[in-house]
């Protein structure tokens, strides 16, 4: 999975491409969580992301909890219908901020 990071002031955008699974979830965790030390808004762009498994969902949940703890906000954008289906199966559509 490739992660492209763009920072603008207090906002950071992480653009993901490929698959977020057991192998690549640690990579996202390493890229995402430290951003909350400085950023107030984290946007995860899923436009090029094809697949999310439970391992990836746990990292997204970790990001959401970290955002709340730090008074920041995590938003997901450009989520595909297939990934949205996984979010709905697991109840994550009601937990994550998706635009």
């Amino acid at each position, binding site marked *: 999975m490739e992660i492209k990071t763009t920072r603008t002031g207090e906002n950071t955008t992480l653009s993901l491409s490929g698959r977020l699974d057991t192998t690549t979830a640690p990579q996202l965790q390493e890229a995402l969580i430290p951003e909350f030390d400085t950023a107030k808004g984290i946007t995860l762009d899923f436009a090029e992301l094809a697949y999310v498994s439970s391992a990836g969902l746990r990292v997204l949940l970790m990001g959401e909890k970290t955002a709340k703890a730090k008074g920041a906000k995590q938003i997901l954008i450009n989520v595909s219908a297939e990934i949205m289906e*996984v979010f709905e199966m*697991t109840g994550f559509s009601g937990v994550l901020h998706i635009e």
Partner: protein
Amino acid sequence: MVSDKFIIRQGEADKTLDKIERIASCYDFKSKEVLQIRLLAEEIISVISPTLSLSPGRSWISTDEKTFSVTIDCDAGVNGLDESTKKTLLKLSRSENSKGIFGMIGKVFEFLSVPDVDYNAVTGHRMFYTYGADSMVSGYYWNPEIAYTLPDIKSFQKQADKKNDDEHNLEISIIEGCADDIRVALQKSKGGVRLEITVVKTFLTEQANNIEFN
């Protein structure tokens, strides 16, 4: 048709998942369903990952004109399965998708208790049961001194499930959401316990079933 068995080693599941995805893509599935099949296999491997740390698992694909099945099995060793995996398997076996479970209930009970308090996979009740020398299993409601009503027992079950909310519930939700059928089986084996989980996807149209597996 049945494929060769692929070995699954902890930390190397990607190789097996790639093979499963490649085989699934040869069939009449939309790309979304091919990824769902890969996702199903990945979630099962996640469920059994504690046992994969002890010994490799195996995976194979079987198909007929109407269905595509992925089976993953592993040996849990003489110490059996850890509590988290047991609870996950019971939840999966109680899934509404699990049409093939009833033939496997006996094998699950045979393994789980001697004696113990655990879930009745058929009724969802807490059962206290013993495994006799004659291989018969008898069960009765938990805490026989108090006569709980059926709704009480189901309520206790729901409370117990909530406490275990973090244990593999994501994997279970995804497996239940993507699979058309789920089968769980446990058997005593020479090495301890053998676990087998099968997930099934139904083809949209009947297949000629003549694809060669690589």
